[in-house]
C-alpha cells in the first residue's frame, strides 16, 4: 500500500540541550529534497529549535527524557513536523501560547517560542495530556 506521504523520518533523541542543534541539522538534511530557499530553511530551523527547546526546558525541566521527532513530506511540497515529549504536559495550552508568557522564572526565557513557531510555519497545533505528553505539530508549504 502506498504511503500518503512521500518521505518520512522518525527520530528519537535524548532531551538534552546539545540536541537542539542536532534537530536543526536533521531538518536541514530532510528538507533538502524540496529545495527550500534560504529563508524557508531558516524559518523551519528556527521553529523546530523552539519546539525542541520547549520539550527540554518545560516538558522535562531538569529531568531526562526522550523527544520523538517525525518529519514528513506530503503532496510533494508540504513539510510536516511533529515533536513529542513525554514530560509534564501543559495545563492551559491557550495561556501557554500567549506571546511573552513563560513559566520559567529563573533563566532568561523570552516567552516567544510559540509566537515564533506560529509566525514561521503555516500551521501549528499543540496537544497535551497533563503528566503524560505534549505534542507540537507544524506544517509549512515549501514553494
Amino acid at each position: 500500500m502506498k504511503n500518503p506521504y512521500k518521505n518520512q523520518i522518525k527520530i528519537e533523541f535524548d532531551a538534552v540541550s546539545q540536541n537542539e542543534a542536532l534537530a536543526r541539522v536533521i531538518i536541514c538534511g530532510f528538507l533538502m529534497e524540496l529545495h527550500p530557499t534560504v529563508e524557508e530553511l531558516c524559518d523551519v530551523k528556527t521553529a523546530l529549535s523552539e519546539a525542541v527547546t520547549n520539550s527540554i526546558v518545560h516538558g522535562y525541566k531538569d529531568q531526562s527524557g526522550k523527544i520523538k521527532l517525525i518529519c514528513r513530506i506530503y503532496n510533494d511540497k508540504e513539510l510536516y513536523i511533529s515533536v513529542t515529549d513525554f514530560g509534564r504536559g501543559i495545563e492551559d495550552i491557550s495561556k501557554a501560547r500567549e506571546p511573552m508568557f513563560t513559566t520559567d522564572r529563573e533563566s532568561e526565557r523570552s516567552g516567544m517560542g510559540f509566537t515564533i513557531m506560529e509566525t514561521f510555519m503555516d500551521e501549528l497545533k499543540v496537544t497535551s495530556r497533563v503528566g503524560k505528553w505534549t505534542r507540537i505539530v507544524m506544517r509549512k508549504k515549501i514553494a
Partner: protein
Amino acid sequence: MGISVTTTNNELIFKIKGEIDHHNAVILRNEIDSIVENSSSEMVVLDLLETNFMDSAGLGLILGRYRKAEKLGMRFMLVNAGDRILRLLKMSGLDKTIVVKGDHIHEESV
C-alpha cells in the same frame, strides 16, 4: 560557537560567532557576565555580524545582557544584527527597548 572580546575606547565589544540557541545561551551568558562585572567600561556592545543562527533564546540573552549592563550603569548596544535577527527583535518588541545599529564605527580618542 565562539566569542571574541575587544576593549576599545571605553567599550566592551563581544562578537558572537556561530549559533545562539538555548544550549549556547547559557555558556555565552556566563562568559559575558563574568567580563562585564569586572569591567569599568561605559558601554557593552554585542556584535552579531558572525551570528548565523538565533532563536528566542538569543532574545533572552540580549535582554538579559541589556538589563545587566543597565544595572551596572553601562550603556548597551547591539550592532550588525542581520535581517532575520531584526525580524525577531521586532516580533518581541525588543527593538523598542534596545539600541540597534547597523554597524559601529570606532573613533580614535584624541
